[in-house]
């Protein structure tokens, strides 16, 4: 097991190195010149050269690449063009909000979606199954900004019982009041995000339960005289969890990237909205930083998923 984990982590490091290299060069390939974006057009050419030199942009690309790596090692992701602040600081401000939103969403979605998928697969073709399927497909097909704005219109504007944006009300800080306030701000974004994620869990779990239920060992369990519920929960569900765990790993890995559309609609101060703003302002250091954090998180989650799958399925060789 230890050998398997070490190997998996080494692979992860290689993947990460490749990813940051690609990120570095892709950002450099973009048509805009950072110096032009950074400085006032009224500045002189000498100033421009000075600026390029300050940022190390006058050196050959390969030298820039290695200093980029060196800074990265120190946790330095560069400085935002627009906000003139370290990218790391900006990301660290946004990340907790995104993680809060996404963790709650994922948790509720899994708690609802997995049992729903298992039961649906068990009762395949029944009315219950058909309704669950229809709702899941509807949820995944719906246009997120439309759903977001509709919810905002109903609950934020018409009924005026929920806030229309942000993550908390300025002025309220500390105590139960703050806690409830943050909770209130989460309700609509969570519902919106759930509509996208729920179908993933329900449909993957359902499909995999249907597959597993036709396996020979399920017939064996029935022939042993096991109760149907035990067959379903003990024999089928555990074996059916592997695709679900893989899907969950991927989705959780992408969590730090936030939800660009949802966060933007609800003016939620998370990573997704930051990315949206960075794109519209051509703030490359922020984008680059966000990509790297995202890649790191996806890679780490993949390692965890692989280890979890090896635990779930003893047939996966621990070599």
């Amino acid at each position, binding site marked *: 097991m230890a050998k398997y984990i070490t190997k998996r982590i080494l692979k992860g490091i290689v993947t990460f190195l490749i990813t940051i290299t690609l990120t570095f060069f892709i950002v450099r390939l973009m048509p805009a010149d950072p110096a032009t974006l950074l400085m006032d057009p009224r500045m002189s050419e000498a100033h421009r050269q000075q600026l390029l030199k300050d940022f190390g942009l006058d050196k050959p690309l390969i030298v820039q690449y290695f200093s980029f790596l060196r800074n990265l090692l120190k946790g330095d992701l560069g400085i935002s063009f627009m906000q003139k602040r370290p990218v790391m600081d900006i990301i660290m401000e946004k990340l907790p909000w995104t993680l809060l939103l996404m963790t709650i969403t994922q948790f509720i979605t899994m708690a609802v979606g997995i049992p729903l998928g298992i039961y649906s697969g068990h009762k395949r073709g029944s009315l219950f199954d058909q309704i669950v399927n229809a709702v899941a497909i509807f949820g995944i097909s719906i246009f997120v900004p439309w759903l977001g704005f509709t919810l905002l219109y109903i609950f934020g504007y018409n009924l005026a019982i929920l806030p229309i944006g942000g993550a908390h009300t300025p002025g309220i800080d500390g105590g139960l009041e703050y806690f409830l306030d943050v909770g209130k701000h989460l309700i609509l974004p969570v519902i919106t995000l759930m509509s996208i994620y729920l179908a993933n869990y329900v449909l993957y779990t359902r499909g995999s339960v249907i597959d597993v239920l036709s396996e*020979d*060992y399920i017939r*064996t*369990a029935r*022939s042993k005289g096991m109760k149907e519920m035990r067959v379903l929960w003990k024999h089928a569900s555990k*074996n059916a969890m592997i695709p679900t765990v893989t899907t969950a790993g991927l989705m959780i890995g992408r969590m730090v990237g936030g939800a660009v559309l949802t966060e933007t609609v609800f003016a939620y101060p998370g990573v997704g909205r930051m990315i949206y703003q960075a794109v519209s302002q051509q703030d490359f250091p922020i984008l680059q930083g966000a990509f790297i954090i995202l890649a790191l998180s996806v890679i780490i989650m993949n390692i965890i998923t692989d280890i979890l799958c090896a635990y*779930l399925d*003893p*047939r996966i060789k621990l070599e």
Partner: protein
Amino acid sequence: MEKIMEVNNLKKYFTLKGSLFSRKRILKAVDDVSFELYKGETLGLVGESGSGKSTTGRTILRLLEPTYGQILYRGKDISKINGEELRSIRKNMQMIFQDPYASLNPRMTIGESIIEPMLSHNLLGKKDAEERAFELLELVGLDSDYYYRYPHQFSGGQRQRIGIARALAMNPEIIVADEPVSALDVSVQAQIINLFKDLQEKFGFTYVFIAHDLSVVKYLSNRIAVMYLGEIVEFSTKEVLFNEPLHPYTIALMSAIPVPDPRAKDKRIVLDGDIPSPVNPPQGCRFSNRCFRKMDICDEVHPELVEINGHKVRCHLYSA
């Protein structure tokens, strides 16, 4: 001999869902099969793929719902019982499956698979169940340490031994073995067949042994039913059946058994064509389109199973 099971006019039909362009169709997998099972005997069920032998085996254990007919276990009709009543009867009847790997839960250790039914039927406590699992593993010729291993760590023959140990766990009266050796190497087949025989001598199990390999069935069975397209076409004791097979289908099957003598004259009867679809069986005798002794009547009239000195056969050659 004590009769422990009686199957009367058993039918198992599957409904094939109609697609956009076709109507619903009925697949008659088992059509009017009757037999009795006596304590301590081995009943062989032989036939090609699609003859309904596996379906018969599964239906009498109620792993499939019978469409029609009676299954009397010790005088009690178990064809319609459900729920708790069915679960409690299951411990008396166990099945050994063709694919020993696929039929073991990959996430459970061998031991967990074996003790699960003992615990769930409250036959034994955890400690005693474990003890019994160790004994069972040794009984089927495995090391008791295998208790802690997973199915993927074993070879085919070992897995089938595990499958047997699992089936024996609840000390069943009837064991239905559904092609238990056809997935194994020939050398391993012999070991497993001998294991079946030893266990029967020791514990007096009653076997229903399903196979398409006649030599395997010959070695183990006391009585043999030959099935074709969901029907029993010939039914007799092993000796009678092998010495004077009556049905042309049985005769053809017998001629296909390889003889371990290179100089033996090959008198194999080769049947033309494949077994017809059980969705649309031939009108008269179901074997008529492949029979080498076909008469005019065979196309028109479906032959009945007739008995000649205890030897049952379904063929117009013998109905007069």
